[in-house]
């Protein structure tokens, strides 16, 4: 399991959209930044967290299509006919997905750095960001894995991913701050798991409080821990479902 040399093109291909967002979207809105909530920060600095998360989001949904591919191509059957431990097959899948999203996040952060986004909390803050993204990616890929195992159809996983991505992303604090949204959307955003995760990623990058009114506060642990609670809850449900469905497919 350990030595799956991946096609590096895949990592970059799925990075295409986040990079476009990072380069163009942030430029498009650069003058609007203070209206849509980035306060004293540049919009690029504000939006980096959202883009990192958007990438983790779509990356996690590739896990589901990959597992469908494994089933359909007979690769899973071939592995199952070997003495390899059953749970190692699933664990290896998750591990490789986490590895991919971490690699992508590093690339995005390096690019953002080149665009002038400097981490307010230093390298430690970025390590925390990467850890949060990995944790989120793990929990979130559980959704697509469960879907993939249940429906055995890559199209379904793609379709659901597509249907979920923009509503969840736009009704979150990924690209604008909560204060900018109409009040009904604020309510959605307040319960949107994406908002929790974005906030926990944004704080180490900006060093600002949640409402961005006070900066230079360093780590905002209550925001971060809240996010970890939400992600953990999602993870328990999605990975639990994945494990259950995987057992069914395997037996």
């Amino acid at each position: 399991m350990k030595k799956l040399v991946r096609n590096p093109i895949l990592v970059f291909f799925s990075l295409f959209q986040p990079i476009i967002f990072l380069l163009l979207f942030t430029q498009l809105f650069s003058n609007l930044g203070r209206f849509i909530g980035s306060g004293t920060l540049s919009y690029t600095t504000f939006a980096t967290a959202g883009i990192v998360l958007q990438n983790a989001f779509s990356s996690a949904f590739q896990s589901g299509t990959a597992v469908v591919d494994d089933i359909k191509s007979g690769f899973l059957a071939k592995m199952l006919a070997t003495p390899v431990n059953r749970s190692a097959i699933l664990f290896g899948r998750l591990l490789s997905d986490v590895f991919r999203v971490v690699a992508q996040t590093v690339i995005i952060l390096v690019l953002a750095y080149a665009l002038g986004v400097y981490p307010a909390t230093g390298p430690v803050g970025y390590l925390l960001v990467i850890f949060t993204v990995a944790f989120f990616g793990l929990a979130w890929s559980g959704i697509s894995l469960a879907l993939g195992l249940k429906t055995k159809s890559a199209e379904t996983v793609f379709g659901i991913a597509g249907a979920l991505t923009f509503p969840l992303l736009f009704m979150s604090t990924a690209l604008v701050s909560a204060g900018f949204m109409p009040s009904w959307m604020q309510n959605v955003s307040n319960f949107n798991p994406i908002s929790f995760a974005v906030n926990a990623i944004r704080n180490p990058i900006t060093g600002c409080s949640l409402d961005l009114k006070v900066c230079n506060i360093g780590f905002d642990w209550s925001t971060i821990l809240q996010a970890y609670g939400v992600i953990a809850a999602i993870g328990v449900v999605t990975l639990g479902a994945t494990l259950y469905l995987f057992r069914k497919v395997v037996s």
Partner: protein
Amino acid sequence: MPGIIDVSQLVKTYGDGTKAVKGITFSVNEGEFFGFLGPNGAGKSTTIKILTTLLQKTSGSASVAGLSVDSDAPEIRKIIGVQNQDTVVDEDLTGRENLILQGQLQQMHGPAIKERVDELLKIVDLVDSADKRAGFYSGGMKKRLDLATTLVHNPKILFLDEPTTGLDPQSRAAIWAYLKRLNEQGITIFITTQYLEEVDRLCRRLAIVDLGEIVAQGTPGDLKQEIGADSISLGFENSSMNGGDTKTKARHVLEQKFDGVSNVVDSDVGLTVYAKNGSYMVPELVRAFDEANIRLSTIGVSSPTLDDVFLKHTGKRIRVEEVSSANSRGMFGRRRR
């Protein structure tokens, strides 16, 4: 003496109620080259999946090398090599890397893998392309690589589910040649295939399955002798348009005028007639049909083949799907992330 594969009253009913295997019993001896034949949907793949521990049986018993497929599955997996219908190679990896990965999946370590991989690359003639990505391989090369991956851990028994379907004749011949050599080295081979001439040449024994049941088993020679008659295949003109009528009419003629006919079976083009000394009967047949105003488009006589055996027991000719599934799959590229 118990066989290396022992199956008794094996039944598999799927969740949706489909009875794929309805109580089959057979046994394969150690070192045998055993063919498992049947039309699509006969239950061949289901049986192979149960024997290779990929699927749980509903009832009956099945053991491989004396190990039960239920309780000793992990032990069985260590001594079997399995090639599924699909060609499974990781196209992002080179041929060599594919083999190494499989060795690791088989829990081999260190230099043992490297040695074995070099040996296998030689066996399947892929030394020159060993360090090219499998994505650039031809269909036949992928299949050979796939076969090699099943051999990494020196399995005692090889299960092959239609290993040559969709390959060009040369690649097919190459695969069969490798299999023959492996069998001569003592590996038991259990194979499903649609290529009857090859079964005839290579398999020591075979079983014919249809609709989840074994309808005949024995050596190719015995099965052919059982038919005990030449086959005369008749093709009728317009048989596609009013085939039903022509066939009924022809059957009628055969019944009335030919005592020597032992059996008449529908075929794709018309009818197949079984009779002793078939070649002597041809002129009479032609005359009789001419009188009855039945126009023949083809007529041919042959001594019994496995195809006839198959036809007799299943009522179908075995139809090889020449549309290459292996190649089309290659074009779309099975890429793993």
